[in-house]
């Protein structure tokens, strides 16, 4: 029998560690780090401003602003049946700086508000009522509001005014703003992704879902033009948006899903990018980008049932996920 000397063992351990590090096998394991309590009975959309360390949550009680590090309530904005909240990114050269303006939807309206004092600066009525979602088109500097009732409205981010709106078939799932005026909408009941064009107000076509059923979660990598679609039956599909072709299917959790996409979500040396999928059954799935043509499930973590909307904090690499704990809406802070 061979014996391994102490020196050899140390060398082997070092080599194994180096190999594992190089191959990313030391990827982080996500767990629930803490919970922030929210007012009201439910939480829906969520957004974080990493620079100013503020967290915004839309719920039946309006928009609540929390300290992203402590969960302390910093302010609120009344908005009946708030559905979604969005922060307009601000750049200083290549560096992101604190946002100053936000948008929120609720009760068939879209409001613009200031983050500093949580004051409403504009209120616009959407063409249809019902749940509505927001995304930001950085090319046109417009906020796109999609109502599940069947409308698409473009709002100028500077003025907060609707500049174009149309009635059009939409869906109740997540939305994402893409390139060339496209707004992707997950239509859970029709089992497709609508490709709406806010420039023309028309549907440019639908992307079919392969084996997934009820697509609800949506996240877009605008550089790679990859659309990550999480379906309620546990299938995550990755679509090339230039062709509408699903080229990878992965296994996720189950139930309604929400997603967010992030570059280097675990800092340098780890994952290049990932789409994080939070699902109703409590599963958090990290869809890891290995290359623009290669994605795998980087990890799957059981947090707690009832996970909802998700936001990524680029400063701490934490994920903020809405959930319900003992009947109370909370924000779960997930990290490693």
């Amino acid at each position, binding site marked *: 029998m061979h014996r391994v000397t102490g020196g050899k063992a140390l060398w082997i351990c070092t080599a194994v560690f180096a190999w594992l590090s190089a191959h990313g096998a030391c990827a982080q394991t996500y767990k629930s780090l803490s919970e922030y309590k929210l007012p009201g009975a439910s939480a829906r959309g969520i957004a974080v401003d990493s620079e100013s360390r503020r967290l915004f949550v839309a719920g039946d009680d309006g928009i609540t602003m929390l300290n992203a590090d402590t969960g302390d309530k910093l302010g609120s904005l009344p908005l009946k049946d708030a559905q979604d909240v969005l922060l307009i990114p601000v750049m200083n050269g290549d560096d992101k700086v604190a946002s100053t303006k936000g948008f929120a939807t609720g009760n068939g309206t879209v409001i613009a508000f200031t983050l500093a004092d949580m004051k409403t600066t504009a209120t616009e009525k959407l063409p249809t009522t019902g749940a509505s979602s927001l995304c930001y088109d950085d090319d046109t500097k417009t906020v796109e509001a999609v109502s599940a009732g069947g409308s698409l409205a473009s709002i100028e981010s500077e003025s907060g005014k609707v500049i174009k709106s149309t009635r059009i078939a939409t869906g109740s799932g997540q939305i994402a703003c893409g390139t060339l005026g496209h707004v992707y909408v997950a239509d859970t009941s029709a089992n497709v992704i609508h*490709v709406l*064009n806010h420039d023309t107000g028309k549907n*440019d*076509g*639908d*992307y*079919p879902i*392969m084996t997934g059923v009820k697509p609800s979660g949506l996240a877009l990598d605008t550089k790679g033009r990859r659309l990550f679609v999480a379906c309620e039956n546990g299938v995550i599909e990755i679509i*090339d*948006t*230039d*062709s*509408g*072709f*699903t*080229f*990878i*299917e992965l296994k996720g959790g189950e139930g309604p899903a929400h997603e967010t996409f992030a570059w280097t979500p675990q800092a340098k040396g780890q994952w290049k990018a990932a789409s994080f999928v939070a699902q109703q059954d409590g599963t958090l799935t990290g869809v890891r980008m290995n290359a*623009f*043509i*290669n994605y795998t499930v980087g990890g799957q973590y059981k947090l707690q049932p009832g996970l909802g909307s998700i936001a990524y904090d680029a400063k701490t690499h934490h994920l903020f996920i809405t959930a319900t704990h003992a009947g109370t809406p909370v924000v779960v802070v997930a990290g490693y």
Partner: protein
Amino acid sequence: MFTVRNSERASIFAALCLCVLPSVQAQDGHDLKDSQLRGKKILMIVGEADKDHPNDDLPIKKHLEQQGYVVTTGAEDDEISKVAGQDLVLLSSTADPRVIRDKYADSAVPVFTWNTVDYPEMKMTGPERHTDFETLDPVQDYARAFTMLYGYFPNVTNPIVRELKIPRSQMFGTLYLQPQAFGWAKPAPSANIVVNIEGEPTHAAVFTYEKGATMYGGFVAPARRVGFYLQDATFHYLTDLHGDAESDPNLAQWWVGLKLFDSSIRWALSAPLVPGPYDPAALKSKLAAAAKGKRLLLVRRLNTPEGEESDDHIAEHLKDLGFTVTEADQSQPDSMANGQDVIVISATNSKYKMSNKYRDAKIPILCLEGLMADTLKMADRHRYIDYGEHGEARESEDPPEAYLEIVGSYHPMAAGLKPGYVKYIKEADVLKWAMPLPSATIIATLPNSFHERAIFGYEKGAAMADEYVAPARRAMLPVDNPAFDDLTEQGHALFDAAVLWTISEPTK
């Protein structure tokens, strides 16, 4: 029972052929409408499902059923009798090729197979892995696997490709952005290569054999055969477009993997070409009917020391058929072709004096000189590799030859001759050959010289050498200097059949 005399039979046949010709041309691929395809019975031979290695057999079955086909699955060890009553057999790569073996090779029912390893047993390729066929795995062959993301349509006039509305020969995406398992084959000369890959014209990703085509080892296809590049779990990677990309014509020509699969299935299910019987007299009548009123330019070397009489006889024969024949010397400019309907280039011409004349003619050309294959873009440029000759003293290692081997008996240029050897000239003599591109249709090769193709044609629009696109039909038939008078009866029939195909309307 009634009998008809030969002359009557010839007339009746000629009349029938004239009536039938258009529909025969339409039959080269997809004469079946959707409504006719619905209800077609497909037997799909698959292997046992393996939960550790999921495959796409079920999605394929569902996909076909969605199009109205009635699909029955069978196992690799099922009796051949299960084919009875079916319209098409599919051989999945999941079925064990060592169990299937040659069970379906003799089947008179069309076979569509992506069981690459079974190609040799089906007589669709030779037996050598890596030489005659190959399966590639993206893990094992990672770097090479990237090359198979791009397929190439060598012939947009192919009926399968035509259905995809591809306007010109070009690349297309086969599988998606990441390499997937894949199979290719080097089929026999009579095959039509629909898609080739890896920059190798003879590495066919999709290829077909018409019923009656000569496959490997002299085996004659009992029905249509299709080889396709799929492997166990790659069907769902076949490219397809959705959303606004569908309206982009360039993308639509590029992302056609799934359409290619569907189109190939339809071709396999469509009626095969049915060649007429060998009847030189009827063929001559048919040619005479087609020649009437047509102006033919015979390009020859006037006052040649060799072949003068033969050229004269060619001219006389063509005039007898009804062509208005103009004769041009090799030294005259190619503007001689202006106002003509067809050009016949004699073997008495010197290649170097002819240079590239007539290459760009927008009218059909029948070339009788194999050594001109490269200048007319019918083959690449390496003498004795891309074109050459048998029996020329000091210029050829090969002995004189009198026979050709018919490998494309289904084709009108085969004159109804059966597959196999046919005596072409009375005495063994010089016979030229060329190695045309896969977009050419091969009718005959030299015996025992698989790659030396004697009679072949390019459809108008087909990609020729150097990506040159055939401006009109192009045909090659080797009739060396004095050989016209030495042609056998079969040889004359082949000559007439080549002329007839050359002047016939190209496939739309």
